[in-house]
């Protein structure tokens, strides 16, 4: 399968001497959902920012469809790779429609404003995440989950080849997680490749085609979920004991953290 996004030997540090990313390489094939797992502060968000072109690595290179990412002008880059940030509170009370409409920015001409075509795309994106009922509500009045869905809709409205999601399900209940991730899975089949950073190995088991596990700024494992998400790798990455529970009869596989010294009560 064609590789859409490829990173080779990425290195980054915010402060000299404190390396956040060290020799990170990965490849995202087309029609793929790639999960990025790892402990807090292992460099997932920084990696996503570099993959989106917002941050330039100090060493290494990112390739988007065989083109050097750093050579692509910003507005053209933003039509091909998008980054959905973690949920935050904006200063001004834009409506859901207005927030999602901002995803159309890279497609607008200089000094232009969105038109009818953009409105249709935005309404479709909002429908895809199931927020049509809230389309004219202020974003600031939404719950955390609804805000996350709004930001994902904005990413969809951006109509990129690759969409990078930074912990998209962190604030969502299981039902909304399913809404988001099923949408992701369907879109991946259609046209977009996804890179998702997450703290939930179980949703990686359910939805990922590829998994990359990081620890302290390095990639410690990468490949198919069943090969990568083993007790050994996960325990090593998070620095704690993790069990992988398999119910062969029902075809269920789950990752369980283990309490210190106690397995079952």
């Amino acid at each position: 399968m064609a590789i859409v996004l490829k990173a080779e030997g990425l290195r980054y540090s915010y402060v000299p001497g404190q390396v956040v990313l060290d020799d990170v390489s990965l490849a995202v094939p087309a029609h793929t959902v790639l999960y990025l797992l790892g402990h807090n502060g292992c460099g997932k968000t920084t990696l996503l920012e570099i993959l989106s072109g917002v941050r330039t690595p100090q060493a290494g290179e990112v390739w988007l469809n065989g083109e050097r990412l750093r050579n692509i002008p910003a507005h053209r880059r933003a039509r091909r790779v998008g980054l959905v940030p973690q949920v935050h509170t904006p200063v001004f009370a834009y409506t859901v429609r207005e927030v999602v409409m901002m995803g159309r920015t890279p497609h607008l001409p200089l000094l232009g404003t969105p038109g009818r075509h953009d409105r249709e795309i935005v309404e479709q994106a909002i429908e895809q995440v199931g927020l049509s009922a809230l389309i004219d509500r202020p974003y600031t009045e939404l719950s955390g989950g609804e805000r996350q869905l709004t930001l994902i809709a904005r990413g969809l409205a951006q109509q990129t080849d690759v969409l990078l999601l930074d912990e998209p399900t962190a604030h969502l209940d299981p039902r909304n997680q399913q809404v988001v991730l099923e949408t992701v899975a369907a879109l991946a089949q259609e046209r977009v490749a996804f890179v998702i950073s997450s703290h939930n190995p179980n949703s990686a088991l359910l939805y990922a085609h590829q998994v990359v596990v990081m620890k302290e700024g390095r990639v410690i494992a990468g490949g198919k979920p069943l090969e990568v998400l083993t007790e050994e790798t996960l325990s090593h990455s998070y620095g704690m004991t993790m069990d992988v529970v398999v119910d062969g009869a029902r075809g269920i596989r789950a990752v369980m953290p283990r309490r210190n010294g106690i397995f079952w009560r």
Partner: protein
Amino acid sequence: MQVMQRILTIRWVPVLRQRESRQRLFYWLLLALPLPLAIYAIGIGRYEIPPDQVVQALSDYALHSRQADFAPTVEYNLVTRIRLPRIAAALLVGASLGVTGAAFQGIFRNPLVDTNILGVTSGAGFGAALMLLINADPFVVRVSAFAFGLVAVLAAFFVSRLYYSAPLIVLALVGILIGSFFNSLTSLLKYVADPLDSLPAITYWLLGSLAAVTRRDIPALALVTLAGLLFMIGVRWRLNVLSLGDAEARTLGLNPARLKLMIIVVSTVMTAMAVSVSGVIGWVGLVIPHAARTLVGPDHRRLIPATIALGAVFLLLIDTMARTLWAGEVPLGVFTGIVGVPLLLVILRVNKTGWQ
């Protein structure tokens, strides 16, 4: 004619039942508001002129004034020579201060700032005071105010560069400091000024007034302001994206640093030009964006045009009060506070503030 026909054939009642159409109609009425109010305001004064004669005088001014047999009436002279320049200045200065306030609140992502935050008004005040101290020609006072307004912002900009990784908040902080510095210099000038002659002139200038505006002042003010307004209308969508923060603006393909710098430069030149004509007028840049947000919402696509119209209307109202309420002129800075503060309090009481 066709437009009129279309307007007349719309069935208004069902249209007005739709919330969106009602909002749109209200928005366009708001944008059109400065024109009738300006015509009405031109008529008000010690010599009252009915609106139809104002319109007559204005159309004569535009169409017939160059014809050889044109005989100006008293009304014509009063309208075009005395009142029009002042009303035009009020509209332009108000629009300028209102829209730059909205742009600054957008890029600083803070509903508590206006262009003053970078010290432009304080610098202009010092520049004017310096020239008033030596009894310079009014035109020189204006040029000096304009120049020192720019100097203050440039100083804030370059001083903030001394601190590594200078984000916008450092620029704002340094701007406040530079502003205070220039305010202190102005106080020093007032301290040494002649209490019978230059001190009242300086004090009066620092309170703001359009009483001294003449036809000579309008071309430069109009040129700079209209160009600035066009720029702001051009970047109004981008202001939305900038207000999300730099990181998101970059992922959406903008260059936030460059765009913000352009907006700061344009806003500063606009404000310096406005203040050099009107003197120091507070509150407009702060109150108007808030008022506009409660009326049309936070989306800069509508907010920017709305602040232009509302700023123009607000200063027109204030200036008309200032020249008609009492026999003598009342400084504008007095009224903008007296009217602006209660207005802002009412706005903050209304739920739909448009910000968090």
